[in-house]
């Protein structure tokens, strides 16, 4: 500590270490957090079910969502990445997940999502022709992106029954 540069170096690095400890403590407080969002999700209508060239099925659907994700926010949350995906099982693949719509929420007050008869952002296309009469679940997934620490993901699934048995 005999020169200004030495003292400055000590000060800044000590502050950096203390800040790192604070970041670890802050991200640990997320483990104590309990969220209980109120979510209603449903498939409103299947407008079309068609087959494209090469045997790929597409379903054009609309959905309803009423989700209150405000309780998911902590003081350490930077934003939520929210998306709706369709999940179903085929003979070839046990897991099929297709993202239909996504949304970013950066402020707690804006975390209430209310959409009615909403068109999907992304196409619901199967790589084969497996969609006729298929049992589908709609899932709301939210990724909690923290200011410091690890991102974690939570989801809620809702069964929406079968898609039409024939092309429409």
């Amino acid at each position, binding site marked *: 500590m005999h020169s200004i540069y030495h003292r*400055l170096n000590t000060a800044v690095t000590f502050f950096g270490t203390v800040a790192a400890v604070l970041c670890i403590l802050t991200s640990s407080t997320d483990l104590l957090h309990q969220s209980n969002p109120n979510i209603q999700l449903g498939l409103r209508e299947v407008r079309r079910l068609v087959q494209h060239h090469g045997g790929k099925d597409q379903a054009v659907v609309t959905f309803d969502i009423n989700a209150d994700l405000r309780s998911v926010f902590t003081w350490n949350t930077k934003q939520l990445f929210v998306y709706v995906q369709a999940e179903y099982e085929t003979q070839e693949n046990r897991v099929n997940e297709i993202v239909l719509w996504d949304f970013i929420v950066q402020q707690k007050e804006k975390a209430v999502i209310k959409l009615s008869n909403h068109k999907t952002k992304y196409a619901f296309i199967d790589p084969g022709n497996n969609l006729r009469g298929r049992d589908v679940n709609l899932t709301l997934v939210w990724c909690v992106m923290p200011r410091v620490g690890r991102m974690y993901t939570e989801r809620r699934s809702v069964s929406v029954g079968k898609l039409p048995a024939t092309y429409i």
Partner: protein
Amino acid sequence: MDFIGQRNAENALMVIVIIAAVISFIAGYAMKDFSLMVKINGVGLALALLVSIPDWPIYNRNPWKWLPDLEVDEKAQKKK
């Protein structure tokens, strides 16, 4: 800075930064405001730098007592 002063400056630096960190964490957690924690830490760092970096007079109160200069014995040198 003399040696006692250097020790005091380093202690002051560490105490101020740690106290600011504790206050900022408690305040930020209570008010659910991350940016409040950052601001209090910034103020704490600024205060710590102000107290410990410049060569304040209080850090020069205990100057080291060096031994007196040796007097060269010229007659002894010439004989050698």
